[in-house]
Structures are given as C-alpha cells and as structure tokens.
C-alpha cells in the first residue's frame, strides 16, 4: 500500500474515533473507552502528519549561514547630568517597587509565641476524637489513642498520643516523676522532624514510628529518637488524674511541638 493510502487510513481512523467519542458521551461515558478513542483520534491525525512529512514532502537539505552578532564598540562617554538623572530615576522606581511589595506582609500574622504554645492548659481534660473525656481506669495497657484538650478536638498542634505501659518499665528522664499516673504516658503526636502525625505504634519494643520519614521514638525513655532523621524527643505532656478519675494535663508542653525553627530554644514566656 502506498503512502497516500496509509495517510487516508489514518485520517479515517481518526475521524471514526472522534465520532465514537460523541457516541460514548451521549451513551453516558466510560473513562477507559474515552481515553482510547481520544488517543485514536489524536494518534490518527499524528500518524497521518508524520507519514505525510516523511513520504509525501520533498524537503532538500539546506545550509543556512550563521552570522555572529555585531557588537558595537562601547562609547566610553563620561557621566553626564543626563545619565545621573537616569540613575536617580532607576533608584526612585526601585524604591517604589519596594513600597509596593510591603502589602505582602499582610498575607499572614506574625508568629509571635504561636509556635511555642498549644491549646493544653493546666487541668485540661484529655478527650478523645469524639470529645469524650478519658478515664485513667479505662485505658488498657499496650493501647494507643489520639487525645485532645477538652474544647479543642481536632486541634492540629495539641494532638497528643496517650499510651499505657507497665509503670515499672518506664525509664523517663529525671524531673518527670508524677507525670504518668498508672503508667499513662502522653507525648505530642507531631514528629519533631517534619511535623507529620506519628501514627504507628510497635508494641513489641514500645516504639512510635513516623510514617513520613521513618523516625522512631522510644516511649519508655521519654520518646527519645532511636532511628531516622528526627533529633529531638517528642515533647511529653505531664498528666494527672482529677477528682472524677479522668486524665488531665498538668500544664502545656514544656517545649515547642512539631518541627524545629531557628529560635525554638528561646522558650521563655516572660519575653512576651
């Protein structure tokens, strides 16, 4: 079959596929069929063009000369009043540009102390995702759940993991005595590396794992990182039990939760 005929076949296939698309649309559509017909419609035209170019167009090789650009000699004129004025104009326009860029500062609030605080307050009850307070007695050993301060369910930076372990297994850093009633330990759920929720718990070695970059934290030893790119422990929430047996926070986290930032160690609220 000669080239003309192949081109004709390709064009007919393309046109038929286009009509097919119309039919498929009227009949209610089907993604794979639409994709295949669309491919045939474009492909037919494409094949026709390529065969046409290769077999039916006579295009001789041509040679085009290349002229390097002509660079005028620098005039070397001294600075005159005119060129000085031009520079002043450039300066004025630059100043105007800077002034016009200032409103970009309205795009967001100043961070202030936002990054240092969460919604946890002294005495705030721990509630689950449905807002129900958590009683210390109801937390079973080896379980892990996400809790929030009462009144802030779903809070992104206050989300906390509550885990119950055997109190005698705990080896927390000094100064955290009395933070873990009945072996209930609570850590910020935000990874200290990139801020992902640390969603996985490996009961066998009491390890919390971040699915984003595989940082691993040891629940028994104050959530120190044991593997992966995280460098800081997950901040620990000091817990207590209120008069009705519900778990409460003693106070907010002592350190900023989530990923690091340059002044995160300037953690003195008095500075405010």
């Amino acid at each position, binding site marked *: 079959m000669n080239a003309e005929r192949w081109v004709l076949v390709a064009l007919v296939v393309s046109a038929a596929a286009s009509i097919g698309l119309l039919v498929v*649309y009227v009949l*209610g559509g089907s*993604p794979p069929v*639409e*994709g295949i017909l*669309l*491919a045939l419609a*474009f*492909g037919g035209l*494409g*094949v026709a*063009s*390529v065969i*046409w*170019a290769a077999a039916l*167009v006579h*295009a*001789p*090789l*041509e*040679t*085009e000369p290349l002229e*390097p*650009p002509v660079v005028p000699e620098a005039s070397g004129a001294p600075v005159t009043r005119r060129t000085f004025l031009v520079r002043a104009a450039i300066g004025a326009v630059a100043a105007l540009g800077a002034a016009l860029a200032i409103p*970009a500062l309205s*795009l*967001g*609030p100043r*961070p202030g102390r*936002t*990054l240092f605080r969460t919604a946890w307050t002294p005495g705030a009850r721990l509630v689950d995702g449905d807002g129900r307070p958590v009683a210390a007695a109801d937390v079973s050993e080896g379980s892990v759940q*996400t809790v929030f301060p009462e009144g802030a369910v*779903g809070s*992104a*930076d206050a*989300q906390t993991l509550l885990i119950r372990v055997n109190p005698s297994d705990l080896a927390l850093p000094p100064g955290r005595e009395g933070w873990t009633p009945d072996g209930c330990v609570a850590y910020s759920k935000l990874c200290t*590396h*990139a*801020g*992902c929720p640390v969603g996985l718990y490996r009961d066998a070695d009491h390890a919390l794992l971040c*699915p*984003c*970059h*595989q*940082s691993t934290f040891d629940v028994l030893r104050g959530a120190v*990182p044991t*593997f*992966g*790119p*995280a*460098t*800081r422990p997950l901040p620990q929430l000091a817990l207590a039990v209120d008069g009705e047996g519900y778990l409460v926070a003693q106070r907010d986290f002592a350190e900023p939760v*989530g*990923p*690091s*930032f*340059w*002044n*995160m*160690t300037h953690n003195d609220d008095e500075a405010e």
Partner: protein
Amino acid sequence: MRRWFDERLGLSGITRSALHKVFPDHWTFLLGEVALFCFLVLLVTGVFLTLFYVPDATSVTYTGPYDPLKGREMSAAYASTLNLSFGVQAGLVVRQMHHWSALVFLAAISVHLMRIFFTGAYRRPREINWLVGIGLLTLALAMGVTGYSLPDDLLSGTGLRIIYTVVLSIPFLGPYLAFLLFGGEFPTAAIISRLFVFHVMLLPAILIGGIVIHIAILVRQKHSQWPGLGRTEDNVVGRAFWPSQALRSTGLALLTTAVLALMGGVIQVNPIWIYGPFDATQVSAPAQPDWYVGWLEGAIRLFPSFEITVLGITIPAVFLPAIVIPGLAFAAMALWPFIEAAVTRDHERHQLLQRPRDAPLRTAIGVAGLTFFVLLTVAGGNDVIANIFRVQVEVVTVVFRILVLAGPVIAGVAAYLACAELRRREQAGAHDPATVRLRRNASGGVDEIGEVDPPTGSSPRPPAPPG
C-alpha cells in the same frame, strides 16, 4: 486574504524567514518539543479542570456518588475533585490526562536537559538559554507541587505539611515566611486558595513568558547541530520549517497528545478517593510524592539525625537536606556553562555538538550527578523497598546512605573509563579495513566505492543522504 493582512501589518518578510528556519534532523532535538506539547495539553486540560474545581477549604459533608466517602466531612476543594472525577462526564479522563501530562512534562524537561548537558549544547553562545531552561525547570517543579496539592487529600496534605516545615526551617526568616505563605500556623484554610492562584495564574503566566523567551532565543541563535559532512561552526544544515518540519512537529504534538490521552484513560493516577480527605491528625502510609520531588523526599529521609543549636540559633534537621543541598545542586547546574568555560578556558563560539565521549570529564560529572539524583529518588521509597524485600526499613536507609555517597563516584569513574575506551576503539578502528563504503549493485552483490573518511573523533558517520 494574505494581501489584506500584509497591507496592514507588513508581516510577509518575517513570516517567510520564520517558515524557512532550518531544523537539523536528529531525534534528540525533539525532546524539548515533547515538553512543549505536554505543556499545551496541560493548558487545555487545566482550563477544563478549573471550570469544575473549587479552591475552598470550607468543610462540607459529602453526598456524591462515591459510596465509601458518603457522609464524610471534607473540604469543598476535595469534594469538588471527587465530583470532577465521578460526577462530571469525561472529568476523570481529563483529570488523569492532566496529571499524566505533568509527570511526562517534567520527564521530558529532564531528558531534554540531559541531552543539552551531555552534548555541550549550552556552550557559548547558548549560556543564556541554559539559564532560562533551568528557570523553566524550577517553574515546572513549582507548578507540579502547587498542582497536586490542590485536591486537599491526605497525601497532598502531608506534602504541604513538609513544605511548611521546610520553609519554617530557614534560619531567622523561617517562621515569618511560613506564616506569610500559609497565612498562619499549619494547617490553614488560606493555603488552598493561595495555591490555586499560584497554580492557575501566577506560575503559568511566568512559565508561558519563559517558554516564549526560550524559543525566541533558539530562533535567534539558530539550532546547534551534530558534526557531519558540510556542517561547520558557522552554519546550520537541515530542512526548512515549512513544510517538512512543521508537519513532523505537528505529528509529534498529536502523537504526544494521543499517548497522554491513552494514559489518562486507562492508567489510574493520583486516586485521591483512596487517600481520603486531609485530616491534620492522620497521615497516609506509605506516602511518596510525584516522581520529580522524590529526590527531595529521599534527601530528607536519608539525612542523618543532625540538628545543632549555636548561640541560641537552631539549624533545624530539614534545613540542610531540603534547602542547602538542593540550593547548591541547582546553583551548580545553573552556573555549569560558566564553570566549564573557566576551567577549560574555552571561550569560543560553538555550533557543533560534542558526543559524550568527546568530553569525558563533563560526562563523568554529569553521570555522577544523575546517579546522585536517581539514588535519592529511589531512597524516597525506602519504606516501600523494605516492604517489597521484607527487610527492615532501618537496613534500607543505612544501605542508601552509603550508596548516595559511593554510587556517584563509582558511576562517574565508570563513565570516564567508558568514554576513554570508546575513544580508544575509535582510534583503532581508523585503521580497520572494514570502514569502506559499500553499494548494492543491480545483481544483488556489493561494490566497494571507496573508504569512509577516517574518524576525527567528532565525525563518526556520514549524514543520511537527503530526501
């Protein structure tokens, strides 16, 4: 008709010279065209998507046709993407075509960049267009990231979270920049509508401008060309744009579109209904980004646990792998033409391309860099690899930490030796009696019609006969 326009605009001279622009004939010159055609498909499919997508983070309850998510709380943005996929006829094909086009767009740009690099096409006078090209690559990456964050699903939300962390990690400015970009502490309602403005307005406008400049410079400077008979440092040998090259390029555009349509129709991509809507307390696992940011993901995963605080100033763990290393890599890439010219003291104008073996050191450095990026990209899936090979993810991570340091060196040295060996064989082949030209005769036998010009190291084969 033509006369009517000509009397008013006087364009016939410009049009005639444009139609006569000479295109050298080699398949590697089509890689950039594929990228351009992907961009055109992105524009057209993107306009369609914009008509249905709603850039709104307001919470709604899903009532659409996809049963597993019925009654779920989600953002209006996510719901509109579900509607686009399940409720709008042909919506899913167009959405998947758009996503596939983006993936192929970045791939075509990358391969085009490698072609330019390994053939030395960026040498004087084409340094400016190299810089424009690197700018276009950066914009295309930004387009990709802002685009796949728009559906507001759990996977892209995780990506946004990491972007927030990376911005936050910049010393002194980080918290301010992150709050300006996101409108407050992550997660914010403002970010979706902002990404939308970036993705459909600001970035495409700059990208289109950049592409116009890229092509205008190409037309002005004319194509570079492979060495061959009649091809010199001050001419271009090829076929006129009209009609041959115009038809071929049209064919390539149509075939590129056809392949993207086929992929969009039959290969599922970014199934956001499986990931679920964004939820600040959840993360999908495994979580891999689109391929072109995989190297950044890998760098963040592999970088050892390292964070220092000096004089009360903390350098966060992600700052080095996510800002400093990519910044240096892109700076080195952008400045490469100038670095090479300074080292080789070659400040001549070049019209003829080099084969990789003709510049072994450049080839070795390029292969090393490429190996680095590829290994980082693979390492971005360390958890998936651990799952497939049933080993601990810790082991995979440690192996890749060694590989990304050793691999580029080994690959670079191997490439250098391969170049030397290819050149040695070529020199030896110059005296090989097998390099004669043969012609088939009428009786089916062959006649020897003379020797091939001895290879000069830059002229491996005669050009194809015209026609």
